Structures are given as structure tokens and as C-alpha cells.
């Protein structure tokens, strides 16, 4: 790759380096709380020390790369679809955590994702998602007797 003199410092690259450093710190801090129990065991601390040390070195390596501007170019980013998909996942998680059952959550996730990919038919997609969820529910719960997180809808079956 030809190096161009106008390369700017890559801020995102520096943030990555910083995150790695923070991770290294967390691993180290967590390691200090461990004890060596068996007199013959190398102990649970050795691996965290290696990982923490490696991450620190890699943070430096990434920082150098960022300062030199060697990170690859990136396209502009459209945040809206990402928020839609993550929102769909968050709804599913919340519904399962608070006993709303997975069916509504799955239908929501399906509709949200397909909206994120440019479809404009939320209700139709919601219904499609719900049909898939019912199908999966019947397959798992009835055929394999697995218990899936149930809410009001699931209890109808």
C-alpha cells in the first residue's frame, strides 16, 4: 500500500486503542482478586496476566497505526437501520425478561429488521413474524417438549 503524506490521525483508531487499554486494565484488576488454591497448580492468574499484557501491547500497536493513519477507509454510516435492529432485539429481550413471551418479541424483531432493510410494511411483516414464531413454538414446545419463555400468547396453545 502506498503511503500518502496527507494521512490524518485516525480518531476512531485511537478510541479502539484506548478501549483495548481499558480492557487490559479490567482483566488485570479482576486477576488481582483471584487466589492460588492448589500448591501444584500454576494458578488461575497466569492466563489473565498474558491476556492483559497482550492487550496492552496491542493497544500500543493500534495507537501507532491510528497515528500513522493506516486504518482502512470507511463508508459513511447510516445509523437508522442499526437503531431499528438493536431496538427490535431490545424489545425481545425486555419481553422475555418481563414475562411477555417470545412470540410478540420475535414478531417485533422480524418487522423491525425488515423495516431496517427498507421495507415499508410493518404490519404485514409483524404478522409474518408472528406466524414464524407460532410455527417455531409448536416445533419446539410440542415436538421436543422444550419450554420456551411463555407469555399471555403462548399460554393460549
Amino acid at each position, binding site marked *: 500500500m502506498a503511503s500518502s503524506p496527507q494521512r490524518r490521525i485516525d480518531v476512531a483508531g485511537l478510541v479502539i486503542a484506548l478501549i483495548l487499554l481499558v480492557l487490559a486494565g479490567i482483566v488485570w484488576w479482576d486477576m488481582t482478586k483471584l*487466589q492460588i*488454591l492448589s500448591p*501444584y497448580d500454576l494458578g488461575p492468574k497466569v492466563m489473565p496476566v498474558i491476556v492483559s499484557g497482550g492487550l496492552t501491547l496491542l493497544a500500543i500497536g493500534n495507537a501507532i497505526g491510528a497515528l500513522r493513519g493506516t486504518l482502512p477507509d470507511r463508508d459513511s454510516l447510516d445509523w437508522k437501520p442499526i437503531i431499528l435492529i438493536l431496538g427490535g432485539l431490545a424489545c425481545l429481550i425486555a419481553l422475555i425478561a418481563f414475562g411477555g413471551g417470545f412470540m410478540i418479541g420475535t414478531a417485533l424483531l422480524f418487522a423491525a429488521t425488515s423495516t431496517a432493510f427498507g421495507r415499508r410494511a410493518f404490519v404485514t411483516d409483524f404478522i409474518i413474524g408472528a406466524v414464524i414464531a407460532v410455527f417455531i413454538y409448536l416445533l419446539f414446545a410440542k415436538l421436543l417438549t422444550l419450554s420456551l419463555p411463555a407469555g399471555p400468547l403462548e399460554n393460549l396453545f
Partner: protein
Amino acid sequence: MTQFRKGLWRSALAAAAVAGFVTSAAAQMELKIMAPAAPGGGWDQTARSMQQALTQAGIAKSVQVTNVPGAGGSIGIAQLVNNSKGDGNQLMVMGYVMVGALLTNKSPITLDQTTPIARLTAEYEAIVVPADSPIKTAKELADALKADPAKVTWAGGSAGGVDHIAAALFAKAAGADPTKINYIPFSGGGEALAAILGGKVTAGISGYGEFESQIKAGKLRLLGLTTPANQGTADKPSIQAQGIDIDIANWRAVVAPPGISADQKKALVDAMDEMAKSAEWQAILKQKGWEDSYVSGDAFAKILQQEQARTKEILASVGLVKS
């Protein structure tokens, strides 16, 4: 469709009632059994076997099994105590392993918060050595341990589990320092077994079932089982009878949520009593090779107390729990 189904249900129930074997109130029970582990494991198999026995013997109308896996049962018991308080139809399968796991995981929830119902099965621990090992008896293993605990390497299950506790108890009973045992935890039964067969370790310790076929094939030598002295047989000798005082079993039991009424508790204990006697349950025990060790109600509650105290002590002595 639903109408038809309901009708079918009713006639089936009626038929069952007419059959007459069904015992009054218990037959109306709609039980939920939680296995605090993923499908397939020992606790899950126990839950599903109970489901089979309870419904086939007509003790319960329906039994639903749910799985709440994670952290040696810590997540399941948390859910039982927090979300099922006062639910007289809920049961949870548990076992000796959970006693240790709750201690080592520093779980904020303890078994004291549950309502003990019954102990169902037990499996004794077996100590084996490779067939070509110079060690022939449990006594010789104890002597080797006393001479230098570092040189006696043990292969067994995860740290703090029943195998580890049994090894520490053995060392203690042998007069060696239990904190100095060279116990090497392996992840699966198969991996530990391979290490023993390959002669990588001095001895292996695990449930008898793990070793049974190797012992019969003459690839492993059984030094003994952790059975009480009077229960030893010629091909399954008791270690206690060989002068090393150790008595431990990996049992499985059921408990109910906290806050259930005395009547609800009695109904559950009665249902378990009835199940334990049923031909269906006995057939399952035989088929799975599980040893019946049925104890219910207050007697089981007392055992649970004792096991907790003893386990805490031994885990503290190997450093896994701060006393």
C-alpha cells in the same frame, strides 16, 4: 376443534377415574418441575423421569418440565426462591452438587430458603486406579497419600464438585493434609477417564457408573466405594470397611419454593411418597441404574442441614470457601 379436544380430555379423565387406581386429591395436581440445568444432564433426566412416573402412575394430572440452566443450579434456585414463592405446584430437582456450587459461587440464595421435600436417588463415589498400578487397596492409597500427598495425583470432575470433596475427605480420613492433595479437575467424565486409563494420574474418583464398564473389563481396579461399612460387597467393597472413615454420596432430591402452606407441603410430600413406591418409578430406577435412597419430609430436611454444614467445612479446608 378445541371443543372436541376438551371433550376428549374429559372422557380420558373420566376413564382414568373409573379405573379407580387414581388417588383422590393428588390426581388433580398439575405439577411443574424445574431442572436447574440444560436438557440432557442428570438433573434434567431426573425431572423428566419424574414426569414420566408421576403421570403414568396417575399421581398427577399433568407435569411440565422446565429447564433453567446455569452456574451449577445457582440460577435455577434463584428463580425458584424469587419467582415461585408460595406456589404449591412447583418443584425443583437438585442434588449434592448444588450444595457445593452455591457455596463456591457465593450465591446470595441458600437451600435454607427452599422447602425440602424428598431425596430420591444416590450414587456412591468410586476410587479406581489403572489395572497395572502398584496400588492394590484403599489402604495402600491412603499410605501413599500420607507419605507424600503431592505424588498422588487424582483425576475427577470440576473443582469444588463432589469428586473433589470426596478426595479431600479421603485424604483427611487417611490422616493426610487435605489442603495438600494434588487434585486435577477435568471437564467431562470422559476426559478424566482417559487420563486414568492412560496412566497419567495415580487414581481416579467419580460416580461408580462412570467407571463400571472399565472395571468389569479389567482395565481399572476398583479400590472401593464410599458406601457405609455395612453395605460393602465382594465386588463393590466399602472404603469405610477398609479402615478409612469416609461416607459420602452424590444424591438427587426435590425441593419446593419457600412460603408454601403446611397443607401444600404435605400434598407434595405425599405425592413423592406415592411416586417412590410406584412400579413406574422403580422401573425407571432399574433402567437408569439409579440407587434408591428415598427419604422425605423432615428427615430429608435434617439430612440437607447436615450435608450443608459438612460441605462448608470441607470446602473451607481446601480453600474454596472462606469459613
